[in-house]
Every structure is written in C-alpha cells, then in structure tokens.
C-alpha cells in the first residue's frame, strides 16, 4: 500500500493518463471538500489547540453547548419556518408566470424577463436599505412577512427563469395531444406540463429554500433582532465563541441542504441548473 505514496512509483503503476486524472481528483477534493471535512472534524473536538492537527480530545461537548442555548434552537425553528413560507409564496407567484413566459408570446415579455436581472445587478444591500424605508412606513420591520419578502427578492429570478426554461423544453405536441383526447387546460398543466418540467422546478425550489436558509444580510437589517434565523446567529457565534461552536452550528446549517440535495439528486444536473441563467 505505502509504495504508492511514492509519486514516481504511482505514476508508473497508474499509467500516464490515470496519474494526471488522480492528480486532478486529489486537487479537486482537497480544495473543495477539504475545508468542509476539516470543519466537520472540528465540530467533534472537545479540545483542539495549536499545534495539534487532530483534536486532542474528541467528544460532543460543543453540540451540547449549542443545543443548550435557547436562542440557537429557536433560530433553527425560525429559519425553517421562514424558508418554507418563502418557498411556498415564491412558487405560487412565479410558476404561473414562468409558464406564461414559456408558452405565450406577448408584448413586454422581454422587459419582464429582464426585470429579474435587476435583482442581481443592483447591490442587494442597496435594495435592502431602501426597502427598509418602505417597511418602516408600512410597519413591516421586524415582522415575519418583511423577512419573507426580503428572501423572495433573492429567489425570484431563479424561480421564474429556471421553470420557464423547463416548460419551454416540454414539447407543445404533448400538451396538444392531451387536449385532443379531452383534458382541460388545468388538467393538461397538472398532468403533463408540470411533471415534465419537474427537474427545472425542483432545482428552482431547492435554490429558493437553501437561499432562504442562508440569507443573513437582509434578515439582519429588516428582522431587527426580532426575527433571528440561523445564519444571523452564526455571525454572532463566529465572532463570540470558540471555533468548535461555529463548526457545530455550520453543520446544522448544512444539514437541510444535504437532505434536500439527496432527495432531489436525480433532478440536479448541469443542464437543469444552467437553464436558470439564460434568458430566452
């Protein structure tokens, strides 16, 4: 086994082509997954001081600490609540619009598509700050609705562009065939168009939900410490507590992402995701 640790030997054993591929894989894993794995390790360290590479003492001390903090536990509930409401509202508003954009031709269609680019081109903080002024006027500061609106700003572009590109890839003939055998427009939509556009919609939903789970800046500004989601708490933890507490909390923050990605893995592919960035 150890003889493969000698690069020269490994080079000849694996062959030239495989050698480079292994090198790419190693670099890739170290850079993209190394930090995450190191963080997971830290979360299970009771004691982890310089210069130890592996923790001096393993254990669940920091997990107990995090779960004993009332504010941290309530932030988890808060985060999930906001994310679910945001995703539901966003779907309800955007999926009909996406369908219309994909299937109908009407004046102003491009302007509408472009208006979503605005949310990406204008600095978010700029939008948040001036929306704050509006929110004060309508008493939305520090309310759940206010935070949900802020989170929706981030997700609407994906929620329209991705399903729109998915609906466009459903063949019109398939819908027409369903209509021909007597299905009404709504039934055709729910039985034919929607299931076939599911990959795009699934990825958009995933984006919206996870985007809402990680939004911190706008929530801090608009939530006024009354609505504290997990990432908002996380900023505090990073600054105030030892590294391990942050690592534990970071893992808690990643769990929803991991679960959802696993559940939707068959929908997640380069094509489905890339569709969300193309305006057609």
């Amino acid at each position, binding site marked *: 086994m150890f003889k493969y640790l000698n690069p020269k030997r490994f080079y000849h054993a694996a062959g030239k082509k*495989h050698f480079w*591929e292994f090198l*790419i*894989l190693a670099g*890739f894993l170290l850079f*993209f997954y*190394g*930090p*995450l794995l*190191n*963080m997971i390790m*830290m979360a299970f360290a009771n004691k982890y001081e*310089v210069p130890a*590479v592996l923790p001096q003492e393993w254990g669940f001390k920091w997990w107990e600490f995090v779960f004993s903090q009332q504010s941290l536990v309530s932030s988890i509930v808060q985060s999930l609540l906001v994310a679910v409401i945001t995703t539901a509202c966003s779907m309800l508003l*955007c999926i*009909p*619009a996406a369908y219309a*954009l994909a299937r*109908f031709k*009407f004046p102003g269609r491009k302007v509408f598509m472009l*208006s*979503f*680019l*605005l*949310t990406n*081109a*204008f*600095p*978010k*903080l*700029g*939008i948040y*700050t*001036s929306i704050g002024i*509006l929110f004060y006027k309508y008493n939305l500061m520090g309310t759940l609705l206010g935070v949900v609106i802020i989170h929706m*700003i981030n997700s609407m572009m994906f929620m*329209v562009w991705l399903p729109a590109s998915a609906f466009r890839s459903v063949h019109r003939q398939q819908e027409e065939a369903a209509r021909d055998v007597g299905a009404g427009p709504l039934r055709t939509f729910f039985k034919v168009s929607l299931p076939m556009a599911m990959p795009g919609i699934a990825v958009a939903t995933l984006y919206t939900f*996870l985007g809402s*789970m*990680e939004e*911190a*800046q706008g929530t801090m500004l608009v939530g006024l410490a009354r609505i504290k989601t997990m*990432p908002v708490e*996380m*900023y505090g933890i990073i600054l105030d507590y030892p*590294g391990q507490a*942050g690592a534990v909390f*970071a893992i808690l*923050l*990643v769990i929803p*992402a991991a679960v959802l*990605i696993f559940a939707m893995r068959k929908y997640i*592919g*380069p094509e489905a*995701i*890339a569709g969300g*960035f*193309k*305006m*057609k």
Partner: protein
Amino acid sequence: MNKETKRKLIAYLLVLPAFLTVMAVVAIPIFTALKTSFTDPDTGGFTLSNYGYFFTTPNELKNLGFTLYVVVVTVVLAIIIAYLLALYLRFIKSPISRAIGSLYLLPRFIPSLVAVYAMITIIRDSGLLNRISQLFGGDFKPGLMYQASGMILMNMWFNVPFAALMITAGLGAIPDSMIESARDVGASKLQVFRSIILPLSFKDVVIASTFVFMSNVGSFTTPYLMGGNFPKMLGISLFDQFNKYLRYERAAALSVIMFLICSVSAGVYIYTNLKEKEWEK
C-alpha cells in the same frame, strides 16, 4: 373576444402577480435609492456631492480600484480554471471524471457563510495548513487572511464550480458527430478547439463571466469575514456607510455606482442573449 386576445389576457394574468411583486420590492426601492443618492442630507435639495465623495476621497478611490482588481482577477482565473475543468468533464469519460462531474455540483448549494468559515479554519495562521507544517518542524503561515489573495482563493471555491457548470452545459450541447467529422477531414485537436468548441461555447462563457462578475462586485460574506480593514471591498464599504456612519445618501450613491459597474457586464450579457435570437429563430 377573439382567441388571440384571450390568450394574451391569460398570459398577462399569469405574469402580473410576479411582475407587480418585483416592481414593489425591487424596482421601487431601486428608484428610491436613486432619488436618495442625489439628495443633500442637510438641505434635502439636489446635489452631486454624494457621488463626488466616492470619486474624490483617496481612500474610497482605493476601495474602488481594489474591488475592481479582486473582481477582475476572480473572473479571469475562475473562467480559465472552469473552462479547463469543463473540457475535462466533457471529453474525458472515466470513473474519475464522472465522480468529479457530480461532486462539483455541491458547492453551489453550501451556504456561503459555512464555506467561508470552513476555509478560514484551513488558511488562518493557526489553521490546518500551519498545523501540518508544524508537524514537519516548519512554521508556515499562509498569509491569506485579510488579503486580496485569500478572498480570491475563496471566490474560486464559489465561482469555479458555477462557471464550470455553465460551460459544461454549453459543451454538452456540441454534438460528438460534429467534432468527429472535423477530425475525419484532418483538423488537428487545436483546430477543432479553435474553430468549433470555442465559438460554440463562447456564449456560455459570457453568461458565466457576467454572473461571476456581478455576484462579486457586491459580495459581502467573504470580505466581511476574510477581508482586511483597508482597502476594503465596496460591499463592506456600503455596509459601513449605512450601518456605521449612518450616511444613507452616500450608501445610496454607492449602490448606484456599483449598479453601474454591474450594468456594464449585464449589458454584454443582454447583447449576447439577444444577438443569438436572430439566427435561432
């Protein structure tokens, strides 16, 4: 009412709720910000001094230059690395490339705060790299924290997978038969790349660069946790104007300046998207 009008009416009814929401929560706030940026904080009258501040104060000019430097280096590096990765994923079929092909989708879904935090545990002066070097008797300090280089490294983590994904999707649309036929009539690999692969994937490169550019001009999490005190990224500068100095007019002006910077790349993006329409019809 004829059928065509009816269809249009339905389309507008479907689009309207989302459109009005975007108007209310995005367009109106942007418009208010624009108005605020020209308002004098003391007299409430019209002024250009909010903009003038950012173009005459040496420190603010340095922040602007620093931001552009970080963003441009990020875009160029990310696109080059992503293109190579995408070529590898598209043209080399092996278990390893398939594994990378599914693993590189994940970083897109990791909360940015978590990713930055994880990277810090590696590259800070008491981080993993330093600890490993101490194992071998050295004392290697990466010197990446609070530097442009550290932020650029972090930006690679976020943007390389994203750009590679966009380019892979584009490369995947190039049929194998096209490349094979070019090879059959004697085109070299380089010729195939220059005259088939590059032009056909150019649009995706533009789209990827646009979004990498825009997301980095206003980036906040990475510079907030990894950046130094000076020079700082515009996202932090904006946050400070708003949160620390309570200069709302200046914050609004800076938002508009950042928007204009983004508009340049958004313009390129729209141009490529609309140009393509002509022959796709």
